[in-house]
């Protein structure tokens, strides 16, 4: 262990961390505390005065069937997005690991989608699957599927999950490729000599050794599905049809900035914050135990 550094000056260390603390305070703690404060306020219809109502907003939000629906939608959306994004990325990474020639090019091409902005990605998928102009929608209908995400809630969900997962696959792919490369070749060879076929080798050797990567991506993908998919949902479905794809984040935006029910919206974002903190804590506490580092 390196010895502790002791500053002779009492003020200097605080000055050194001050910029970081200032940034965290201004851009994180201050807005977060504002949200917390606002979640206990109720505005009059004209925005002229607001009154402090303690937890009334929370009670109202949690009793709202629309909110509970949004909770369900978010759960389905996040689990599906994380599952699709991670499994497809893992499959691609395993395949890319086998590519011998022009492996660099192959990888680079697979990383590109990550550079596409969420709203753009959403638009791409929207155009491809738009029931009236989408080329792939046309193919789907030709194949006998009654494709109409503008009316069918399940199909709308499939579409946003696909778009959200598509964007995250590149990121996951990158980490899985790195994870696969970190597994010593001799382990795979030893398993081959030990009589394990390719599938068996993957599930008994490669997959368990990838666990740290998988775990990390699980946390990142969940947070991504919760927060960073707003642009995609906004561009593709706008939360509809009905409220079939209205996730918690989208509802916060809708209630707060479209409908201007600021108190409700703030209460929802506080709940959202608690949910993500809880999810991450659970993941670290229970899933990480089964993870083998090194």
């Amino acid at each position: 262990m390196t010895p502790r550094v002791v500053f002779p000056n009492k003020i200097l260390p605080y000055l050194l961390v001050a910029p970081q603390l200032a940034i965290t305070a201004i851009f994180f703690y201050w807005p977060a505390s504002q949200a917390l404060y606002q979640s206990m306020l109720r505005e009059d219809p004209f925005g002229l005065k607001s009154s402090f109502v303690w937890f009334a907003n929370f009670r109202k939000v949690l009793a709202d069937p629309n909110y509970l629906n949004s909770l369900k939608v978010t759960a389905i959306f996040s689990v599906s997005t994380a599952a699709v994004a991670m499994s497809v990325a893992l499959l691609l990474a395993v395949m890319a690991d086998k590519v011998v020639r022009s492996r660099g090019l192959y990888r680079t091409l697979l990383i590109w989608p990550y550079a596409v902005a969420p709203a753009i990605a959403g638009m791409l998928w929207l155009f491809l699957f738009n029931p009236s102009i989408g080329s792939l929608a046309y193919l789907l209908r030709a194949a006998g599927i009654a494709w109409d995400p503008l009316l069918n809630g399940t199909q709308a969900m499939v579409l946003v999950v696909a778009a959200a997962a598509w964007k995250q696959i590149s990121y996951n792919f990158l980490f899985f490729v790195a994870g696969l490369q970190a597994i010593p070749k001799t382990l795979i060879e030893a398993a081959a000599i030990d009589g394990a076929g390719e599938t068996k080798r993957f599930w008994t050797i490669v997959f368990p050794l990838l666990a740290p990567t998988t775990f990390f991506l699980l946390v990142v993908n969940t947070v991504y599905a919760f927060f960073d998919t707003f642009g995609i949902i906004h561009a593709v479905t706008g939360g509809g049809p009905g409220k079939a794809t209205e996730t918690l984040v989208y509802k916060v935006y809708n209630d707060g900035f479209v409908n201007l029910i600021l108190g409700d919206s703030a209460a929802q974002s506080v709940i959202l914050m608690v949910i993500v903190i809880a999810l991450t804590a659970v993941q670290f506490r229970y899933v990480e135990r089964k993870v083998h580092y090194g």
Partner: protein
Amino acid sequence: MATVDLKDVRKTYPSGVEAVKGVSIAIHDKALCVLVGPSGCGKSTLLRMIAGLEAITDGAIAIEGKVVNAIGPAERDIAMVFQNYALYPHMSVYDNMAYGLRNRGTPRDEIDRRVRATAKTLELDHLLKRQPRELSGGQRQRVAMGRAIVRNPKVFLFDEPLSNLDAKLRGQMRVEIKNLQRALGVTSVYVTHDQLEAMTLADVLVVMNAGVVEQIGAPLDVYERPETTFVASFIGAPPMNLLPVAALPSSITSAAPAGAATLGFRPEDGTFSDHSEQSQLSLAAEVEGVEPVGAESFLYCRHADNRLILRASGRTTVEPGARLAVTIAPEKMHWFDGEGKRLS
């Protein structure tokens, strides 16, 4: 009868590099064959080809008389001990050893019996529940051995298994491997770059250089009768002295066979006395350094522009700067031609 036969085996990598250029070796049942050579000589590639981890470009490898060129590593019934042990880091010692048996569908109680029996012979029984990262280097090495033994394969392959251990442990494990291999009677191929390991372990010693076999034979035969200057300088520590014939006095070269270009003699075969006793049949050498190692001392000398090493038993009174007269008995002289081949 698990014999291993290599017939004109070749390996050319896609890059065009020829790693193995036609190697033929016949390994008898129960023999321990050691492939030794400097790094990059193709010995590891050859071992990996026997294991089935590397495709064979040309030639044939047969185990028990059956050509295995097109058979995968799993079906060759071999076990390999890797240099870095390649233990599965997420499995306990028990699971590491049981993995191969489970893959082959061995019944559960049979696996348990065999793992425990093997663990006992290797003194690993108290470590079965541990994970590899909780073991010392020597213990990991034993687990790697155990994983090979427990399957009771036809052939053992060792890829420099002792090179990650410290010197003392290496000596211990060397003896243990030899005893185990004898006791189990399993045909083995052992790759090393350490000539001491090669000499002490081998029933059959195969000296390789630049993708070809330089010499095959019993270790002491190879030591006493090196076929090439490469073998002469690689086997034996310190290596054989090699002096160009042109630098030698005619009194010595008169004994040389026709075409001789190099004279070789082992450090222990050169007897030396004080410079004043210089005779026609001796070489003049100047001592540049003395290296006492206990039971013997090595004298690093120079004859004209050539370096040579002499061995003195016990302590020596010779000091650096001393001038010596070195005499070599004619029957201890090894003569090599211009291409480094032995002339008998």
